[in-house]
């Protein structure tokens, strides 16, 4: 399935759009329930482990990306606005294992809309700096991992 990925350097915003052939309530749950989030959030071979999550304005999700060798990279997402089944916003930052955020972070805006049984998710991520984006890529998604993922993709395509 196609994904749109647009980087606007002027507004320092990355926009990601993807359509899913499923109803909105299901997609919304996948984004807002920890037990579902952990099943897709981390790009393989990483895994996502949510330690605490409270989906309400002022609440947060504190989770780790866990590498295959068990290395944990913690992140904190604070929910700043929620319009049920329509939109939510969060402030995203890396953190230490004691939940202390490492600033600067990024502001995320996620919009959900349904049409003819399909759900479109539009995510816009505002980053203070490209350096942070670089850090994000580096935080465990080192080049080796990326090529590993490419290999996996290639393999899956052939099956």
């Amino acid at each position, binding site marked *: *399935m196609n*994904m749109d*990925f647009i*980087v606007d*350097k*002027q507004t*320092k915003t*990355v926009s*990601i759009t*993807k359509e*899913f052939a*499923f109803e909105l309530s*299901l*997609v919304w749950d*996948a984004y807002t329930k920890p037990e*579902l989030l952990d*099943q*897709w*959030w*981390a*790009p*393989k071979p990483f895994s996502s482990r949510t330690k605490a999550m409270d989906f309400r304005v002022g609440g947060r999700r504190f989770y780790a990306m866990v590498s295959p060798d068990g290395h944990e990279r913690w992140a904190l997402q604070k929910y700043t606005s929620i319009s049920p089944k329509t939109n939510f916003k969060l402030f995203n930052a890396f953190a230490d294992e004691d939940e202390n955020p490492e600033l600067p972070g990024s502001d995320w805006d996620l919009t959900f809309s349904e049409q003819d049984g399909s759900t479109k*998710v539009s995510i816009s991520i505002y*980053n*203070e*700096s*490209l*350096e942070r*984006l*670089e850090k*994000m*890529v580096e935080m465990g*998604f080192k*080049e080796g991992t*990326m090529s590993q*993922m*490419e290999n996996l*993709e290639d393999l899956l395509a052939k099956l």
Partner: protein
Amino acid sequence: MLIQIMRRDIFQAIADPTRRAIIALIAIQAMTPNALAERFDTSRQAVSKHLRILTECELVTQEQKGREIYYSLEIEKMKEIDKWLEQYRKIWETRLNQLDDLLATIKNQEK
């Protein structure tokens, strides 16, 4: 410290329209601050400030030729930007494909 971090921010370097225009010009050929100032109808001082920021971001290199300093673009550094973004794009692609698979699995279980 903060100022230094901000100046090294490549996003900031390319966010300014004049700096983007400078990048476009020196990508074609090395130019002196005076030549650039003429092209932009701006002071040499202003151009020098932009060049300093670009230099701190390691997007440009300087070469002394006689009494003039020529600035040229570090193409490799620009490529790095694309490389980062490509990796970031891949993370999202993988992530959202996984979500797609998960939704299909849940849907099948419901049946």
